Structure formats: structure tokens, C-alpha cells
């Protein structure tokens, strides 16, 4: 929608330029979706435009992958099949498309929306938050005066639409370490509607057969990470969830009742535990629900019986 209170669009990447009433403009898909009045008690007056930032969207090295905040979701979606990723053994990249397809937003929106935008919007169901937290991503944040700091993505988001950015701070990039990208990963997700907004999204990672990291998103107001030496048994996993997620941390909105989100968290966590406890490849890369990827030969697709008749 029109942001009628915007008086100027200022191309800059300098946090020193920021003042009250400003917002950083990356893809614009969130700002223009919610409008001028949704981002504070006073309407926004200026957009600080990152459109000409010129940041390399994706940099792949032996140390890992750096995603610029301005990397679009469409660019990220292309990563697993890009020349940059070719020839590298990075099973963690299996998560990229699963997470992108967890967006309720259409692929058309991905042409504009960005990695940084999803992190900074900080919704519980933000799938790039799930991806980056699940892969132990570390965010680099620029502050006025040339200062910068780093923070794990799992800690960057602090609540429903809340994050650790101070006014004027700018998310520059997220670095995904090679150690996580080379690990075996597992992905589970549920939504109240087909291809709808995530109500529960869990990512598991087995690092070198030695430790398991479980990242809970969507079900909870902020990401919750559990780390285990070795693959835990069912009891240990459940006990760790009990400790890590108090009842009030389960998210409550139209996209899922907290009681359902909680039980699904336990259920999907156990599925992930089972998958990672089995030998590599035993489970392929399964996902819960009827979401992703579309699989032939599983349960019959709704209405397929008439579709095939050419009706």
C-alpha cells in the first residue's frame, strides 16, 4: 500500500544517517504491506534505501556461507543449485528450499523480499529465522559511528515481532558456518492449512555424529535451541523440551493454539530424534504434513481421482 507519510527516500547504508521516523528499506515487502503506521507510535517519515548497497548477496567459501541482509529469497532459493554450491558437500543446504517453501508468501514476493527483512520482522513463523538459527547462523549488525557487533540468529529474535536491534542499527549479514552446513539435518513443519503459515517448524542437526542441535521455531515466540551430546533418548529429549520451553513461551495466535503447538513440538522433535539416530540416508529427507516437497505416490492428493479423469 502507499506509505503516504514518507517524505523522502534516502539511498544509504550508513547507520549514522538514521533518525527517528526512519526505516531501513530492503525489499519493501513488509514495510509496504503493513504501511506507515504499523512500526511505532508515530508514522514513518523516511525510508533509508539499501537498494544500491551493492552487497554481494551470497558468498560461499570453505568457512561457510555469508548471506547479505539484502539477499533476496529468490536468490537464496537458487543457492542449492548454484555454481557456488556445486561440488561442495553441504547437506545443510537441504534446508534452504524447505524453509523458503515454508513462506506463506508467494514465490513472486521472493523476488523482492530479503533475508534481512525476514529476520528483522522477527515473526515466530519467519522461515529464514528458522533456517539461519537452525544452522547456527551469526548475524553482523552495524551501528552508527562505524561500530559493528555479532550475535547468533537464535538470540537475535527475542519475541513475537521483537529483536535485539537498537534504533538505527542495521543488519548487515548472516554467516552460516561450514560446521553446520556439513552436518546432517532434519526438517519438520506443520501448518493449519496446506502450504500455509507455519504453526510449528523444527530443525535438527547432527554434527559429526557427536552432538545434536534442535531448533524450535514457529511454535514458540522466539527460537529455542536445545543442544545434546550425542543423540538423546526419548526421555532426555522430552525433559530438555520441558526445561527449555515454559508454557507461556508457546505462541498463541490464529495460526495455532498453544496446546497444539506444544504437543506438535514434542511429536516433531521425537521424529527428528528418530531420524538422526538412524544411519544416514535411512530416512531420506522426509518432511511432515502435506507441504513440501510435493511427493507422488504418497497419500492420494485431494480430488486426484477426478483430476486424472480429465474432468
Amino acid at each position: 500500500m502507499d506509505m503516504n507519510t514518507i517524505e523522502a527516500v534516502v539511498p544509504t547504508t550508513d547507520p549514522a544517517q538514521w533518525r527517528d521516523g526512519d526505516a531501513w528499506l530492503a525489499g519493501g515487502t513488509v514495510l509496504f504491506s503493513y504501511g506507515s503506521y504499523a512500526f511505532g507510535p508515530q508514522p514513518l517519515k523516511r525510508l533509508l534505501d539499501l537498494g544500491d548497497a551493492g552487497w554481494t548477496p551470497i558468498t560461499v567459501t570453505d568457512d561457510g556461507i555469508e548471506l547479505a541482509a539484502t539477499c533476496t529469497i529468490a536468490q537464496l532459493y537458487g543457492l542449492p543449485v548454484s555454481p557456488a554450491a556445486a561440488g561442495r558437500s553441504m547437506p545443510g543446504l537441504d534446508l534452504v528450499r524447505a524453509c523458503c517453501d515454508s513462506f506463506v508468501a508467494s514465490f513472486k514476493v521472493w523476488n523482492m523480499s530479503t533475508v534481512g527483512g525476514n529476520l528483522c520482522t522477527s515473526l515466530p513463523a519467519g522461515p529464514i529465522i528458522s533456517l539461519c538459527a537452525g544452522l547456527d547462523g551469526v548475524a553482523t549488525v552495524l551501528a552508527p559511528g562505524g561500530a559493528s557487533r555479532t550475535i547468533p540468529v537464535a538470540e537475535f529474535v527475542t519475541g513475537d515481532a521483537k529483536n535485539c536491534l537498537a534504533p538505527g542499527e542495521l543488519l548487515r549479514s548472516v554467516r552460516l558456518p561450514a560446521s553446520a552446513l556439513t552436518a546432517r539435518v532434519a526438517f519438520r513443519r506443520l501448518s493449519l492449512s496446506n502450504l500455509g503459515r507455519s504453526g510449528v517448524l523444527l530443525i535438527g542437526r547432527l554434527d559429526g555424529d557427536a552432538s545434536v542441535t534442535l531448533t524450535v521455531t514457529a511454535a514458540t515466540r522466539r527460537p529455542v535451541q536445545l543442544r545434546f551430546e550425542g543423540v538423546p533418548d526419548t526421555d532426555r529429549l522430552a525433559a530438555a523440551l520441558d526445561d527449555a520451553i515454559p508454557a507461556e513461551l508457546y505462541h498463541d495466535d490464529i495460526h495455532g493454539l498453544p496446546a497444539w503447538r506444544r504437543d506438535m513440538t514434542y511429536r516433531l522433535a521425537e521424529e527428528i530424534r528418530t531420524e538422526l539416530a538412524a544411519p544416514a540416508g535411512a530416512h531420506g529427507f522426509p518432511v511432515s504434513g502435506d507441504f513440501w516437497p510435493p511427493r507422488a505416490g504418497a497419500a492420494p492428493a485431494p480430488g486426484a481421482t477426478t483430476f486424472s479423469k480429465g474432468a
Partner: protein
Amino acid sequence: MAIEINGTAAATGPRPGQCLRKFLREQGNTGVKKGCDGGDCGACTVHVDGTPVHSCIYPAIRAEGHAVTTIEGLAAAAGSRDGQLHPVQQQFMERQGFQCGFCTAGMVMTAATFDDEQRENLPRNLKGNLCRCTGYRAIADAVCGAAGHPDPAGQGSGIAGEGQPDPEPARLGDDVPAPASRAVVTGAARYTLDVPRDQQQALLHLKILRSPHAHARVVSIDKAAALKVPGVVAVFTHEDAPEQLFSTAQHELFTDDPDDTRVLDDVARFIGQRVAAVVAESVAAAEAGVRALQAEYAELPAVFSPQEALLPGAPLVHGDKDAFAARISGPERNVVAELHSELGSVADGFAAADFIHEQTYETQRVQHVALETHAAIASVDAEGRLQVRTSSQVPFLVRRTLCRVFGLPEDKVHVVAGRVGGGFGGKQEVLTEDLVALAALKLERPVQLELTRTEQFTATTTRHPFTIKLKAGASKEGLLTALQLDVVTNTGAYGNHGPGVMFHGCGESLAVYNCANKKVDAHSVYTNTVPAGAFRGYGLSQMIFAIESAMDELAAGIGMDPLEFRRRNMVREGDHMLSTQPDPEEDVHYGSYGLDQCLDLVRDALDRGKARYREAGLDDLGPDWMVGEGAALSMIDTVPPRGHFAHSRLRLLPDGTYQADVGTAEFGNGTTTVHAQLAATALSTEASRVAVRQSDTDLVEHDTGAFGSAGTVVAGKATLAAAEELAVRIRAFAAGIRQTQASACVLDGDAVVVDGSPVALADLAQAAADAGVELAAEGRWGGTPRSVAFNVHGFRVAVNRGTGELKILQSVQAADAGVVVNPRQCRGQIEGGIAQALGATLYEEVVVDDAGRVTTDILRQYHIPTFADVPRSEVYFADTNDKLGPLGAKSMSESPFNPVAPALANAIRNATGVRFASLPIARDRIYLGLKGAGLVPGLEHVPA
């Protein structure tokens, strides 16, 4: 750097915070539509350098130096030669992949970018394009180029059955395409705000200050700061508004609804009610003016649930009203209307029962989500006549209401509707027209009001939530012995449609069953929440959810097949249809009866479906899935009660084609096509030779409007009468000039065959003009007597006991629509009704919090069915021929919605044993219901 639009550089640049959608429309590309303005619906899809984007969330400045293609330029950009369509446009036209057409430009622009792989996965790739009308089947066929007309022998083809008359090409029974098809697929169809660029630039814009309080008296509104905002022209408050109370609901008789509403009131009764209007030279200035208004309120106690509102001492929503003058049943009790009746004795009926079912059923608030939001433009012309262009199902009633509120004679008000981008009952209200009329009359300048999607959710209307305490008994022989209902409906802050929805809800839902003992106590209750209004089904879907759920419970209780139980109790042709009156409605008749056929069609289809799964080896889905099937039936009177009037004019044009002027509105319901077909049938010509003009109060005398499924059976009957009369006149005139008998003159296409030799109609028209004779005729219909139509829906479902996921394995609907005038279009109405009902059954809910505030105020918080959510349904038609409808046709636009929710609930009950008595039946609630019933395995490690 200029923005290039369809190959031409734009002369001006965008404003700093402007979105690309708005910029493109300002440049004259009105094919770019606003459905949500938030990136969710895709109606605004355009290409930037060939890449599809949602232009409403695309910063316009980002398009500088780039090439934008809109629907208007798609064909040329793809290299199509002059006048030729892009292949995807062609397919949408040929397969009729639209109804109202408001989403079509976005659909086409999206699908035009697809490769084969993307076409293989439409659930994913079309989930960013919402359609509220079609249910997506026709869209899939259009995108993939599948056969637009199914094989008649195919499963659920939607082809009329054997007993239906043979289709006459371009006339009765043929799949005639909508006359507006080409305009729709090219973005040229003009919806409400699609006015030419020079007219756009002359407009003032109106924005609304809305109440932040659920109940408050407006103490004062300081306009000073607002009037100082550059561009602000005027501010209107209750001090400027007429004293006349009215209802936003529109009916033939305004006395059907309470007079409880003012254009601007000094009491706010819900959060979101309009308090003041700011008119300015631009939307931005009007918004700034609204922010600058200083309103002081005195808060009043508020009540949010109808149950609390009925308690003694509850805050009164309309306690200031006089019951008699305002036609409110009990303003001192918050009751806008009530109904108490008992036929026979339910006490005796329960005493005779072998099984009694008692349950409270609840239905939720749902929103129409027509893709085009409410919008209107008003101006005063040089003759001092008020001109209103609005998105309305009822332009003639809008005129009446404006005349009543502003004290104007009818000839001083002209109301037109362009093509309307979806209605579903939501546009059977006056929600914008009164404000723009007020402003235009005061300012004598054109004024536009366009509601945002959030305003639609928070401040228009919803379906009435019902709480239904049901008690029903059955004998072990399978007879319904008693049916008792205590019904409370929540009409919100205003009583628009409150009485009608309550009475209608308690009508056909009960009357479809023979039962000697029926008791109803119903109250329509005010609360300080967003008003409820008219919505497809008009109370029936809520009541049918309860009653049809109960029929399955009774059948289960006595151990009988649920469809067999229905067969033993449903009305048969000739039975009195009784609900709350001891005598049947005197003007409702069995013009035809196909309920028995519908039940058999659904039963047989479900059996075939089960066999198909078995034969394919897919009947065992594993231990996590529980499978079941269920069905529900519904009946509807084909016309609303107490008169529904239509007037049509037909005339022969100089070129030998016909012009039909009708009153009823086109909002995707397809009546334009049907009227052309009915006229063509009577005139022995092709539908394409009949040009229909509509929804303009200057064209015909009166039309009650496009609601109550009246577009075909009332207005169509008027058009048919006019066409039959015109045929007689043409033949008589031809006989006169050829000195022969009228019986020797036969109409045939573009000619009259006189004694075997054709006379071109164009020549005849010339001869008539020379003779000073006008070959024209009029037709009228008053909507009575009425018939009954039936729908039966069946589902096979699988429910996951571990997650609550629901899969629809098969969806079948059988409809008794009489003679089907246009099978493809009627099938589309049914598919669209099913899809809309699935949303209301599975996830849609307008949530109002404890303070009375709507929290689901954007489409991401109010999920309507996407392509991924809607199964392909099998559609069957009964073989009936109605004695009362035009050429045997019956209504079929609201009713397909009605049996869907209970059919699904019954299928889930059959699969799981758990009765879900509240809507929506979302996956989380299914899971928690199964858990409560002890059906979820493996919970040892989950905290209690």
C-alpha cells in the same frame, strides 16, 4: 529515470512512499487491481523486467529505469499481433477461468510466467493468487489448458443428466461464455473505481476517523487542526449528518430491518464505527486530516457476547431507541428480533423417542472477502442530480435509501454499479454510498471512498455467529420425533439483516424434515462488536450445520445409516414444508423436487470413490490416518419472501441484434450470460446477439437486486417475459409488412423467416423505424410464487490422529437446480460455494478480542482458501424441470454453501467418533478433540 509502462515511458515519476500498484493506476492502467494492498492476494501482479511481482508491496521508486508490463500490455509484450491475446489470456477466456474477474489480471500475469514445471505444481505456484469465486478448478483448467468443457461421461463432469433437455447451441443448456470475457482477461472491464484518468484526477478523497472505543458517546470533535492540513477540504461529523435513522441492510421493504443507524452518529457502538469523515484533494491529505482530528469520547459500558447481552442489567446497545419507531423487538433487552414457536408438542416427541441427542452448536464470524473492497464515487451533475457509482448488488435499493436519508426525490438520484468484484451478500448494504453522497451534496465536487482490506475486516459486516442449543429425538424405527432449538444470533452493534437472517435460518433448515413436534426459540441480539450482515446462505448455513450434524448423531444413536435416516424423514413432493408456522408458506411450492435424486447421486458417487481408492491400492493410509465419510442435505426457497421485483426491457436494434436492459447486477454470478441465453432462447437466436446492459437505475424502472439467489429466477423471468413478448411483436410486424399471418413468421437467428423466405432483422428494424414503430417489449416479475431447490454434499476424509491434519479424499455435491441454463457456469457457482464453505469450515474466523477489537484484520491473519486448500469436487445435477422458474430453472448461487460444513463434520465424526460442534474445525482443534477423546497415541512424554 522514467518508469516504462507497456513500452512507453511514464511522463511523471512516483511519490516517495508510493507503491507501484497505485502509480500504475494513476497512469491509467486500471487493470492493475487492489485486492488486499498487502502482498497476499496477487490481484495486482505485474512484471518488472519480465519478473512477476506484487505491485502493491513494490516500492514504485524501485521501478525507475525499469520496464513494467501490466495486463494491458501483456499481449504486446509477448509479441502477439494487434488485437490478439496472450495465450494465457486466450485460455482464461476459452475455459472461463473466472467469475467476478477481479483476480483475473493477477492470475493471468502470474500464469503467463510459468514454465511446465511450475504448471505441474499449481498449489505452490498459485498460492499467491487468491480467488474468492471459482474454487480454482476453472483456473487450473485455464492455466494448464485442460479441456474447458469436461467429457459428459466423465466423473462429476457437472453435465446435466439424461432427463435434462438437450442443449440448444448458444441458448438454453449451452455453456455460453460470459459476454464480458474479453474485457475481463485484458483488464479492460471497468469495476467501480476504474474510471478514466481525467476523471480520477478531479476526485476528492474521503477517509474515515473510526471509533477506538466499543461503546462511547462522542463528546466533541475538534476539526481545526485537520482543516489546516494542506489539501483538506472539509470535515464531516454527526453535526453534519441527517437525523434520519436507517439500516445499512437493503431489502425490497426497508421495514424488514430496524432503523438504528445514522450516517454519522454521536454514539459509537463498536470499535471501528465511523465517527467523522475527512475529505481532501488526495488520499494522503485525507489520512493526515484524520490523524489531526481531536475527538473526545465519554466511554460507556460495553457488552461483547450475546449471552451476556441477554442478561438482566447488561449494557444496552440501543437503549436510546423507541421499539416501535425503530422496529426493534426489545431495545431494553438488546433483542433486535425474536421468534417463539412450537408445532405439536416436543415434550410428547421426546417421550416417544428411543434416542435423544443434545448438543450446543456454534458457528463463528466469517467475512465475505470479496476481492474488490467496498468503494463508491458520488458527484452532483450540472442538473443538480446526485450521481453515485458504487460496488453494489442492489443499486436500485441504494437509490431508495439515499433518497430516504437525504430527503431527495428518486429522479434526483442516479445509481450505477460497474462490474462488481464479488459480493456474496456483503454488498447488499449501504456502507460507503451515504458518506460520499453527504460529501458530494455539501461540496458539489466528486468524492471517492475506497475501503482498505483492514476496514473490510474491522468495520463492514460478517456472517452472523449462531449459538444453537439443539435437542432432537428419534424412534428406533428411524422417525424424527422431536426437534427443539434455542437459537441466539449475534447481530453486532447494528441490526442490519439481523431479523431476516434469524427468520430465514429457522426456515428451510427445519422445513426440509417431516416432524410433528418442532420448537424454536430464537433471539437476534445486539452486542458492541462489528455488525453482522447478509452472507451467502443467509442464516441457513448456520442452522443446517447444527441440524444436519444432529441427524447423523440421531442415526448413529439408533444404529441406522445416516442417509437412510434422512430418507425416512425428509419432505417428499407434496408434503407440507413446516418450520415455525402451523401452515406452509402460501407461495412456496414444489415447482419441482429433486432431493431424492441428489441423495442417490451423492451416495453412488461416494461408493464409486471408495472403490477407486481400493482399486488403486490407496485405501489403507497407514495407522496414523482414520478414514470416514459423511453427507448433509439442504433446502432453500428459490426466491426471498415478501416480494422481489424485476423489470427488463428488450428491443431490436437497427443492426438486427437485441439489447436487453436489466436491473440485476453482475458480480461474477453469471446472470448476464443467463439473461442473454434466456432471451436468445425466446427469440430463437444466439446469446451473442443479445447485448445486456444492467445495474443502472436509469435503465429500467426497478430491480430489488442481486441477492437471495434472484438473478436467474426473478430477473431472468422478467427478461424471458420481455423476450417472449418481443418475439410476438416482431413476428406480428413482419406479418404486417409481408401481408401474411404471424404464424407464418418464424424467428431464426438474425432473420425472420416469412413464408419460407428470410427477412433480415436489420431490414425489419429499418422498416419499423420508417413506420414509426418501436420493436421493444417489457417484462416484469414479482418473485412469487416460489419453488424450492436442494443440495446434498458428501465427503470422504482422512484424519491424522497424531497431528489433527485433515485430508479431503473426495468431495461430491449434487444439486437440484431445475433445468440448468448454463451447466459450466452453474458448476462454477457450486464449486465456488464449496470452496468458500470449506474456508468457513476449516479455518476462517474473524476473531474479536475481549475488548471488542477485531484482531484478524489482514489476509495473513484471515486465511481464505488458496489453490492448495481446495480439492476438485465432483458436481452432479438432478433431472428436474421447474414449473415456476424461467424455462424450468431454479436458483443455485447461495445454496451450494449450505451443506458443506455439516457434511465435513459428519465425515470427521464417522472417521474418528468425535463430534466437532463448533466452527471452524481447524487442525489444532481436531487434534485437541482427538486428544480429549483419548485417540492420540504416544503422549507419554508430553506434559499433561
